[in-house]
Every structure is written in structure tokens, then in C-alpha cells.
């Protein structure tokens, strides 16, 4: 059992993971940091234990020292524990923030998931990760159909454009496939990821065009870097074809992480001339430079901000969203703790796409729900699609009585033209 898993894991253990294997002292700092463990008290959820389960499996194969290393041969229980340890994690890296050695459990989970997928442990149905694969594959095959679809797609964007014009500004445009535009904005499924951005770009007088694709990259969630790169390639090719100066990603955490941390390595020279950024810092810079103006105090509802892990501790954008919120809202309350130490919403790492994970997600969001309740805020604002869906589910599950919004929703609604 687990032969393929062990093969792949051994092959994909890189330097930081080798450090993890060798130097983790099992001090337990990570267990107090993990929202999964905080809610479940299941040992397989302790980040250090996630590594130990893999390490034990790796060592269990050989060695007369097993009695001492506490390594057991792979059996059914072990497989299901590893399965849990790898899938019931949002890869938020809160544990790494507290770790005295900055050991990165998200990296382990990325490798572990990929290895499990290739093993085919027969437990897929339980964790339901097939759905993530399915979406990942669809993202890639979009590249093959887009030419046939283009006309229909643009036609539909025009319909949307018409609606936004009626409601917002008659001269607003949502350009698609526009050669020579400065900015290629890659949206998400759902007009909520298009409309606020379109309004802001319009107000800032930006020269932009919308992508035919969406930013999400579900292959990334399962550590399938070859496929993740394939999906990302579609965006790069589009950017090159249109000759844009910058690629801008929407309020989506994992996609932003691929853009800011992986594109450079994946595409090297090809991407070198194209700037890469997330919408939040871009809009914050518009505001700072006076390219857009907003009504100060447009929102007087008590409001709080949830730092998405991939924008906050994994992306470094702590202040930009806050500056936008403060410009619009008169009563901003911080979650405690916040910024790099913020609790994960419990829906990241692709879990939101797995229907079977709903209960686990709600459990893992317990800390988050309590955090929100303590602020007494009525609106919870964030900058990641995953977080928004999860927060919405938590709102219902825990009866928080809040409204979930995106940072750019706030800005778009307060724009002065």
C-alpha cells in the first residue's frame, strides 16, 4: 500500500521539506495555531503530526530502527490518517507563522495531495477531491474551446455592459480581447468579480481589457504543478497576444499566489516584461494617486476586514485593503488577531469546491466565527472569493447575522465620478 505515494513524495521532497523532516522538534507551537486542530482536537490535524505521518510512512518502508522511530508499516488506519492530514488543511500557513523554524505545512500538503492522487487510495469519495480535479481540467480545456466561444462570449459581455451602463455610467465600457490595452484584467466566474472592477477601471480612466479566461487554478490546490502551469499558460499567451503591460488578478487568493509567486518561475523571460499584480493594491494606488475618488463615510455600518491567507501572510498585502476600507467606512473594527496572525476562514485550499467537506469546513471555521462575533461588526469585508463563500456559509451556520462583501464592492459603490 502507498507505494506510488511514497515514490512521489520521496522524489518531490525539496530542500524546505527536507528541513521540515529533519529539524522539526515537535514543540507543538503549530497545534495552537491550526484552526482545524482547534476545532477538532484530532491529532492528524496537528501540523507537525501531518509531517510525522508522512515521515513515518517514508521510514516505515526500510530500516531496523522502526521500533525507535515509531514508524509503522502502511496500514489502512495510516492511509486514512494521511488522507485526513493532507486534505483537511487549507494551506493557510498560519502554523508556519508561529513555527520557530518557519516550516511550511502548505508545501507538504501540496506534495502530499499530489502523491495521494496518483496513488489512488480508494478514499477519494470520502474526501471528494475529484471535484477539484474536474474543475482544474475544465480550466485547461477552456483553452481549446475559447476560439469557437469568443464571439458568443463577447456578445454576452456586451449585455452585461449595457446593464452596468444603465445603472452606473452610460459611457462605461467592458472591453474584451482589446489589443494594446495596458491592463489585462482576469476575472472570476460570476459578475460580482467583473462589475466592481469595471466601475473602478472606468472611474480611474484605465486602459484595460477583460480576459476571456478566469483566474482560478484548481490544479494548484492538488499540487499538480504541470497542470497548474498549463492553465496559467492560457493567461500568459493571452497577455502576450494582446501586448498588455500588466496582468491584474481579481479578489481571489490562490490565483493571486500563483501569479505573484509562481509565474516568474514557470515562464521566466516570457513574462519578464509584464507586470503582475492583484486588484487590491492596484485600486489602493489609484486612490492614493487621486485617480479615483470615493465618498468618505459612505458606509457607516460597523465593518471588519478578514485577511485572506494568500493576500495577507502569503502575499504581503496587509495595508492596501485597509486603506481602501478606511477611505469608505467610518467604523472599521479589526479582528483579533489580524494581519499575518489572522485565523484562516477554513475554506481555502480548494475545500470550498468539495461538497463533502462542508461539515469539516464549518467546524474549521469556528475560530473565525468567534472572531467575527467579538467585533460586533455587521459587515465582513474580504478580498478572496474562497473566503467570501466560506464566510457566507459560516454566517448561516453560526447565525452571525452579518453581510459578506468584497473590498472592491465597497469602493465601487462609493465612487465619485
Amino acid at each position: 500500500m502507498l507505494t506510488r505515494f511514497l515514490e512521489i513524495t520521496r522524489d518531490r521532497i525539496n530542500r524546505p521539506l527536507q528541513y521540515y523532516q529533519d529539524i522539526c522538534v515537535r514543540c507543538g507551537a503549530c497545534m495552537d495555531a491550526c484552526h482545524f486542530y482547534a476545532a477538532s482536537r484530532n491529532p492528524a490535524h496537528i501540523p507537525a503530526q501531518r509531517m510525522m505521518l508522512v515521515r513515518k510512512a517514508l521510514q516505515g518502508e526500510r530500516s531496523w530502527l522502526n521500533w525507535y522511530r515509531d514508524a509503522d508499516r502502511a496500514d489502512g488506519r495510516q492511509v486514512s490518517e494521511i488522507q485526513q492530514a493532507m486534505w483537511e488543511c487549507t494551506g493557510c500557513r498560519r502554523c508556519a507563522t508561529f513555527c520557530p523554524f518557519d516550516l511550511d505545512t502548505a508545501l507538504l500538503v501540496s506534495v502530499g495531495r499530489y502523491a495521494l492522487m496518483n496513488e489512488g487510495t480508494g478514499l477519494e469519495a470520502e474526501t471528494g477531491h475529484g471535484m477539484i480535479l474536474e474543475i482544474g481540467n475544465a480550466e485547461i480545456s477552456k483553452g481549446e474551446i475559447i476560439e469557437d466561444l469568443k464571439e458568443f462570449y463577447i456578445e454576452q459581455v456586451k449585455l452585461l455592459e449595457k446593464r452596468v451602463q444603465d445603472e452606473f455610467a452610460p459611457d462605461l465600457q467592458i472591453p474584451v480581447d482589446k489589443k494594446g490595452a495596458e491592463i489585462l484584467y482576469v476575472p472570476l466566474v460570476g459578475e460580482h468579480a467583473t462589475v466592481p472592477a469595471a466601475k473602478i477601471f472606468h472611474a480611474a480612466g484605465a486602459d484595460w481589457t477583460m480576459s476571456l479566461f478566469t483566474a482560478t487554478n484548481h490544479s494548484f490546490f492538488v499540487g499538480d504543478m504541470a497542470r497548474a502551469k498549463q492553465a496559467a499558460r492560457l493567461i500568459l499567451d493571452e497577455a502576450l497576444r494582446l501586448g498588455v503591460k500588466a496582468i491584474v488578478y481579481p479578489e481571489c487568493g490562490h490565483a493571486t499566489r500563483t501569479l505573484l509567486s509562481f509565474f516568474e518561475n514557470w515562464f521566466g523571460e516570457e513574462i519578464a516584461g509584464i507586470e503582475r499584480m492583484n486588484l487590491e493594491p492596484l485600486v489602493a494606488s489609484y486612490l492614493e494617486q487621486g485617480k479615483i475618488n470615493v465618498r468618505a463615510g459612505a458606509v457607516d455600518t460597523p465593518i471588519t476586514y478578514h485577511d485572506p491567507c494568500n493576500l495577507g501572510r502569503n502575499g504581503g498585502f496587509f495595508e492596501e485593503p485597509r486603506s481602501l476600507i478606511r477611505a469608505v467606512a467610518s467604523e472599521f473594527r479589526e479582528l483579533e488577531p489580524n494581519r499575518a496572525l489572522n485565523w484562516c476562514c477554513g475554506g481555502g485550499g480548494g475545500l470550498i469546491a468539495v461538497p463533502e467537506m462542508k461539515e469539516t469546513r464549518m467546524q474549521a471555521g469556528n475560530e473565525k466565527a468567534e472572531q467575527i462575533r467579538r467585533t460586533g461588526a455587521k459587515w465582513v469585508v474580504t478580498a478572496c472569493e474562497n473566503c467570501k463563500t466560506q464566510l457566507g456559509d459560516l454566517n448561516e451556520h453560526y447565525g452571525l447575522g452579518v453581510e459578506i462583501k468584497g473590498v472592491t464592492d465597497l469602493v465601487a459603490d462609493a465612487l465619485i465620478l
Partner: protein
Amino acid sequence: MAEYTVESTLDARGLNCPMPVVRTSQEIKKMSVGGVLELLATDPGSVADMIAWCKSTGNELLDRKTEDGVFRFYIRRVN
């Protein structure tokens, strides 16, 4: 165009990403092979997503139409 009767309807309007695909996939799995799902969406992104999903899963996109700004897709479960 082939004749078909809709077995089930899914309203994917206003759903967050990637829920339109997730719900469709779930819904299709509940249906009988050969059954047709009607899907409602309002944003262009999910249109492309749906078609790509059909392609990569081998399900058949029978028809698509636009009525009052609402897009309707008809997908036949193949396997």
C-alpha cells in the same frame, strides 16, 4: 436541433466561483444517463466555464440560448 425534455433545472445565478461548476457536476451525477439538465446563468464567465466543463468531462452541451439577459444551457449526461 434534437428534441429533448429537461429532467432537472439548476439556477446558477449569483453563485460564487467555482460553485456553478460544482453544482452542475453534483446535479448531473444525480440524474439518469441521457437525462438533460437545464442551467441558468447570467454572467459570461460561467458560460465559458460550463462549456469547458462539458468538454473535459465528456458531457454533451445540446443547446444554449439567451432570454432577457439570462443564459440557458442544456446539458445531456453522457456517462
